[in-house]
């Protein structure tokens, strides 16, 4: 669906509840800035609810720079955070079109809102949008009173009298009841935001103009996500935006990486269906998509030698038309500059590139078997490598789920042992991939066009990575 029809549907949906807003949106649709047109300025997206023109790059104030020596400056007000640097980076961001700043009462040891407030106060209030959250995680804060306090404190810390984007923070996460018994994500969501009347109160605040957009961010229990959308569908609440995790790995593999996750493709489709703009978090998966293994890096670079590894992830996250902004917690000026460049303007990921990134995701997730049929055409390798046996072992490990992308995987140790022990069993050490010199005599013989030395070196690099984890199998 292109942007135009997206907004049309959106306009129709909104017309039922808020005709005035819809009118405004219709106006913006024609008069508001369209997607950047090849100039070198930041790509902007229009929020159909308020007509806000939001930069595609949003500044996540979750990983603020700290002073090198951790010494507070200018009084202990901002703790160990480098306010001077924050100011400079915020100035740079604003100067380059970034106008969405996402913070929360809990970020940066609770100082993020204050630092953000100080930095933004130096600019006209109309030149940026502030997003903050109701981070009432602690059971003690679940009462309406405490949550109201939290909202009021946010206004004070941010030195403003209204919030542009307010989120129910991390709906779907589990909590504990007053007795300390664990609660599931759905129940927690109800108790934090619905049963205590908080969302009703926030809607009132929205009507009173103290909140311009009301939305939620979601992780974890999918039933909470469903519940909140159901309330939206029933017209009880209206979500102006929803914040979800989206990146090229989570697009199809979120659920496979962790059973409790939901694939980003599905989440996004749910929002798109309702015309709710999506705010994207974790476009880089906590930096993992910027810090890929050498072979993945080589593949990305081979496709576009001039593009940074991270830029692929940002382009992917920014491409869907329903994405309002993509948040990045940019600690360093270099990250900010790089990301500004990536989105000034956005070069949308083409269909081919999308396929390519899905292939990369597959590879990162280790799902790609080597299409070796063990025809033995490549054999004998003059240096004694048992090529089909190595591929067979590798494919077997893929199929049995013994190739883990992360050593944080709960099953990692067992899988590692299975891979390494099985490797020595299937292929004697001197016939393993580490002995491949890359002479390439095999390549021409392969009817599957497998680039054998490359694949062998990739497997060898993986084995080396496994071995370096520990000297114990």
């Amino acid at each position, binding site marked *: 669906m292109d942007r135009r029809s997206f907004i049309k549907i959106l306009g129709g949906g909104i017309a039922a509840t808020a005709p005035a807003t819809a009118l405004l949106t219709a106006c913006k649709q024609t008069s508001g800035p369209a997607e950047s047109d090849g100039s070198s300025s930041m790509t902007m997206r229009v929020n159909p609810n308020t007509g806000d023109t939001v930069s595609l790059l949003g500044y996540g104030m979750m990983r603020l720079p700290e002073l090198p020596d951790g010494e507070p400056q200018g009084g202990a007000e901002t703790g160990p955070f480098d306010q001077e640097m924050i100011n400079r980076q915020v100035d740079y961001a604003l100067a380059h079109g970034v106008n969405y700043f996402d913070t929360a009462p809990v970020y940066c040891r609770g100082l993020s809102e204050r630092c953000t407030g100080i930095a933004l106060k130096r600019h006209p209030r109309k030149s940026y949008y502030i997003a903050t959250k109701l981070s009432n995680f602690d059971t003690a804060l679940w009462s309406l009173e405490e949550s109201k306090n939290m909202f009021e404190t946010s206004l004070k810390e941010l030195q403003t009298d209204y919030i542009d984007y307010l989120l129910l923070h991390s709906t779907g996460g589990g909590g504990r009841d007053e007795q300390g018994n664990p609660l599931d994500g759905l129940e927690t969501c109800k108790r934090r935001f619905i049963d205590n009347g908080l969302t009703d109160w926030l809607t009132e605040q929205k009507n009173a103009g103290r909140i311009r957009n009301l939305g939620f961010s979601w992780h974890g229990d999918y039933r909470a996500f469903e519940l909140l959308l159901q309330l939206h569908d029933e017209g009880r609440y209206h979500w102006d935006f929803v914040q979800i995790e989206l990146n090229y790995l989570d697009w199809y593999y979120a659920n496979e990486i962790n059973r409790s996750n939901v694939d980003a493709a599905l989440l996004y489709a749910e929002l798109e269906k309702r015309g709710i703009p999506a705010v994207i978090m974790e476009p880089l998966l906590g930096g993992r998509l910027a810090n890929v293994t050498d072979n993945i890096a080589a593949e990305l670079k081979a496709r576009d030698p001039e593009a940074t590894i991270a830029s692929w992830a940002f382009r992917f996250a920014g491409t869907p038309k329903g994405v309002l902004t993509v948040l990045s917690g940019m600690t360093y000026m270099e990250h900010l500059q790089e990301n500004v460049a990536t989105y000034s303007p956005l070069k949308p990921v083409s269909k081919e590139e999308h396929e390519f990134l899905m292939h990369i995701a597959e590879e990162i997730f280790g799902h790609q078997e080597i299409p070796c049929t063990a025809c033995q055409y490549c*054999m004998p*390798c003059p240096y*004694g490598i048992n090529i089909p046996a190595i591929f067979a072992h590798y494919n077997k490990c893929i199929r049995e789920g013994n190739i883990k992308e992360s050593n944080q995987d709960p099953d990692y140790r067992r899988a590692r042992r299975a891979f390494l022990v099985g490797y020595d069993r299937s292929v004697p050490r*001197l*016939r393993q991939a580490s002995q491949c010199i890359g002479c390439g005599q095999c390549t021409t013989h392969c009817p599957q066009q497998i680039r054998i030395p490359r694949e062998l070196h990739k497997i060898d690099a993986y084995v080396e990575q496994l071995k370096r984890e520990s000297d114990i199998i």
Partner: protein
Amino acid sequence: MLRKIRIPLAAVCFLLITWLFLDFTGVAHLYVGWLAKLQFLPAILALNVVVIVGLVLLTLIFGRIYCSVICPLGVMQDIIARLHPKGKNKAGRYSYSPERRWLRYAVLVLFIIAIIAGIGSFVALLEPYSSFGRIVSNLLKPLWLSGNNVLAEIAESHDSYAFYEVPIWIRSMPTFIIAAATLLVVSVLAWLGGRTYCNTICPVGSILGLLSRWSLFRVSFDVEKCRNCSACSRACKASCIDFKNHNVDYSRCVVCGDCIDKCQFGALKYDISAIHAKAGHTTASATATSSAEATIETASSQPKAKGLEAGGDSRRAFLIGTALAATTATVAQTKRKVDGGLAEIEDKKAPERKTKLTPPGSLSARNFYQHCTGCQLCVTQCPNEVLRPSTGLLTLMQPTMSYENGFCRPECTRCSEVCPAGAIRPITKEEKSSTQIGHAVWIKKNCIVLTDGVSCGNCERHCPAGAIQMVPLHPEDELGAYVPAINESKCIGCGACEYHCPARPFSAIYVEGHETHKQV
């Protein structure tokens, strides 16, 4: 009572330290590595003050409990002595013999001179814990590994990863022979006379004997109760009880408590010596019995044996010790050979290194060979088949490194963790990765880029230090052959290049050792 406490303690210590030497998974040393560090001579060489003071105090208070509980070679002798048909004989099979003081102290003096002079092989030969280590690692471990390999075969057929196959080979023939000879000598002496070895040859026994003469707790006679029945002397495996004179030679008594249990009249007590008026004292006798002569003879025959097969070092050889071992080894070998359609791979040969390689953490070859007692613990623990005993006469049994079967992997610091003698000091992975123990040398005539005319670069690809670059053989010919260029100052000497080099039998790139390690 004393005996009832000693036997379980000794059994536990013995089994655990044996396990430490047998283990190849790297798990044992995490739990029982401290047992090796408790050993007397390694602790002295490592200047491990806490252990030294602890053992000296232990001996000054309780006598030579060390020899009965902590020393695995001592416990091993007790086990062998018990296997003797008369071992459990009620009457006892030993008799009192006077101390052969001149022999004990002559050996001790020679031993100390050897330590100071840095004759590591002589030190290693006599050190009891190291003798035990060599016996277990050379003679028992192959059986242990064979057993494991049988289990691995079974596991494999059941698609289980519980056991994995490990290679079995004799790291050094001379050391293997010495281990066998030591076992023979110690066994014969234990069989014939209990703790003869400990009280005539063992330098650690002699040192502790000097201390235990003055120990606070000791076995003593209650002359009133003694009926001169000789049961105690016949039970004493240390031959140190002179029942006629009611004398106990405390320098030889290993506080086993056998005599106390044997005495029907309650005439022997183990308690604080101060309350006994008469201090234990025996006179040394110059007459050596035939068993002692035998001892000297066999002991001196060991250095002869060690020269026998000095050339056999590092030769891969499968042990055919038992039918079990033979079966496993053969099965494994045939399986590797019948890979149809595979090129033959020639075994690698160790290059001749001008300077021996010593593991990271050993600081220098000098430090290493001065401290090492040749116990083989690091050799048995090395998961990469890099460490093996060296062959030089002065450093015989003390390890060195070579890279035909593996290289010194960056994540492994196991040898530094297990070494009890301070020969390999504890080192972190980070320190290891920046410690230069040698540098790589390229042998142009072996390099397959030139001999086979193919492109390679396996050394460069595996160098963890980034010390190798592939450069054009002829600088102006960028499309021609690329050969490795070693940045010696970045090379740490891990041997990844040597191991991964496809040239055989001699690698085209090998590591030359450095006498003194340095940080890069």
